């Protein structure tokens, strides 16, 4: 019997074929906590009386959620992280460096076959590189920092097979929102979500990361995509281990398979206040838009910024628009390509690389009754800091068109 991609990665770790439902203990290749989760992790780690951090190279902190700090309380928590990092000699990526899920692959922490844990639910993003990567809580992370190991239940796998050519106005974001609408917010709970098919094969790493990022929004433990030349191209010069091509076997046993004909897709929205409340953009065309946010670990990469600049094409935005590159590396590239100048001239508020308005913690908070089009991954009530605002999740193409028109329109391809 063949193995799913999740089973294959785990089998390489434990030296035998795992069976779904089995509890296995895996050694960890990268572990990350950010300013929302590291303070509690430090508290647990110290309360345990752990002797030290198991690896200086594999453990990292990132300050990205409230970055830079907006208040004294948060500054105190940031300080606590800096002191811990200094004491134990681990890497801390400070304000302005970017979002944890963009930084980890950029800095070489993620590689095919690796096991990555992050004290953040969107850690499933790194499965785009064929790593087994999942979110855990702060105390689990304290256990990882202390021992370098953690228990996992071997997941069953939901396969999302996307085939055919996407229309020019459809992005990978639309495909993943559509999938979540079909599967439901808890349809893949405890499962790995493996994205396959020729459409996925043709996608850039930026597009692939958007899909694995949102696996958690259908309950998934991790999102996974086979590693290939595209993966290799991104990781070259970044990782310190040999690159391997890993894919699920054709005769592997899947819990369920969702087939998507990419040619039939149209631009999608996750409507308030659940990610699985999915409608095509065409159904809500004309809706007034008050705020647009383009950024986050879902859609704050070069491909996304290029599309925003192309759509705006020298015109002024008609809705207030906040744009935040996902990392310093992305920001530098966007500056070099002239995108930042174009976006600023178009009237966008371009900010410091980080999570930004997505978490509703420090800025970009919408007001009562406002409609927000956001390229992020969650639209729960209150998510962006105001429980009475309506958040619609969309692709950067749809979001940029909403910015340009001040209302929701079905985008044209660019």
């Amino acid at each position, binding site marked *: 019997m063949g193995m799913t991609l999740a089973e294959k990665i785990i089998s390489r770790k434990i030296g035998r074929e795992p069976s779904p439902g089995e509890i296995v203990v895996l050694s960890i290749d990268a572990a990350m906590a950010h300013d929302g989760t590291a303070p*509690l992790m430090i508290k*647990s780690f110290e309360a345990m009386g752990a002797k030290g951090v198991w690896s200086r190279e594999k453990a990292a902190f990132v300050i990205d959620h409230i970055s830079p700090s907006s208040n004294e*309380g948060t500054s105190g*928590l940031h300080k606590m992280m800096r002191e811990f990092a200094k004491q134990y000699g681990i890497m801390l990526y400070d304000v302005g460096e970017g979002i944890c899920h963009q930084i980890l692959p950029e800095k070489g922490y993620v590689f095919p076959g690796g096991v990555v844990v992050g004290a953040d639910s969107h850690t499933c993003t790194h499965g785009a590189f064929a790593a087994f990567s999942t*979110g855990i809580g702060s105390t689990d992370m304290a256990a990882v920092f202390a021992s370098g*190991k953690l228990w996992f239940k071997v997941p069953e796998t939901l396969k999302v097979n996307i085939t055919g050519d996407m229309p020019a106005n459809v992005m990978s974001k639309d495909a993943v929102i559509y999938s979540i609408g079909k599967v439901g917010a808890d349809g893949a709970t405890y499962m790995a979500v493996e994205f396959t098919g020729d459409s996925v094969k043709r996608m850039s790493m930026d597009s692939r990361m958007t899909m694995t990022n949102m696996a958690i929004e259908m309950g998934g433990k991790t999102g996974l995509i086979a590693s290939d030349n595209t993966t290799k191209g991104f990781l070259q010069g970044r990782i310190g281990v040999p690159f391997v091509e890993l894919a699920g076997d054709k005769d592997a046993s899947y819990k369920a398979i969702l087939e998507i004909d990419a040619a039939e897709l149209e631009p999608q929205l996750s409507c308030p206040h659940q990610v699985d409340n999915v409608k095509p953009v065409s159904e809500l065309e004309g809706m007034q838009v008050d705020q647009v946010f383009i950024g986050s670990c879902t859609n704050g990469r070069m491909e996304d910024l290029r599309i925003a600049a192309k759509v705006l094409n020298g015109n002024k935005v008609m809705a207030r628009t906040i744009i935040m590159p996902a990392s310093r590396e992305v920001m530098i590239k966007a500056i070099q390509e002239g995108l930042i100048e174009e976006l600023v001239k178009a009237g966008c508020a371009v900010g410091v690389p980080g999570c930004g308005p997505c978490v509703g913690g420090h800025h970009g908070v919408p007001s009562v009754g406002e409609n927000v089009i956001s390229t992020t991954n969650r639209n*729960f009530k209150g*998510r962006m800091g105001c429980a009475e605002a309506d958040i619609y999740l969309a692709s950067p193409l749809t979001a940029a068109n909403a910015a340009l028109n001040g209302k929701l329109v079905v985008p044209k391809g660019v």
Partner: protein
Amino acid sequence: MNVLKGKIWKFGDDISTDLIIPGKYKFKTIDFNELAKHAMEGADPTFSSKVSKGDIIVAGENFGCGSSREQAPVVIKHVGVSAVVAKSFARIFYRNAFNIGLPVVECDLADHINTGDFIELRLTEGKVISAGNVYAFKPIPDFLMTILQDGGLVDHYKKRGGFIWEEPTK
């Protein structure tokens, strides 16, 4: 710990960690006396002032979905809730709850009870008793029960100098 009796607070499906403790609070402090004032605020703004020690939350599907924030089970425990019974849990919340010493069980109970009812939760037997009716649930795996009985993962490590899953399997 093995038998818990308490009054019910009932919630619906998809109670996210954003509803349990909104992100805007959790980034400012890890003082749980402060954070617990906002427990369940997104689902019931006055919950923290109404709940009493020993009460039990009963909910529908996918409880604790969304972010990995461990503050979510901690605020629930901090206001005195002794257990959460839901039809299903989001994976990270489920792990976090055991790690901080909050019992959670997957049981199809929400459609049969109401806020204010009393239930008896027999953790090791895998039974919930309500108004004379018995509802079964899949017992908690042994190693998680051990972590729970040790008082959560921190006390577990302090007590044993290691983690149960590192021990050779029998």
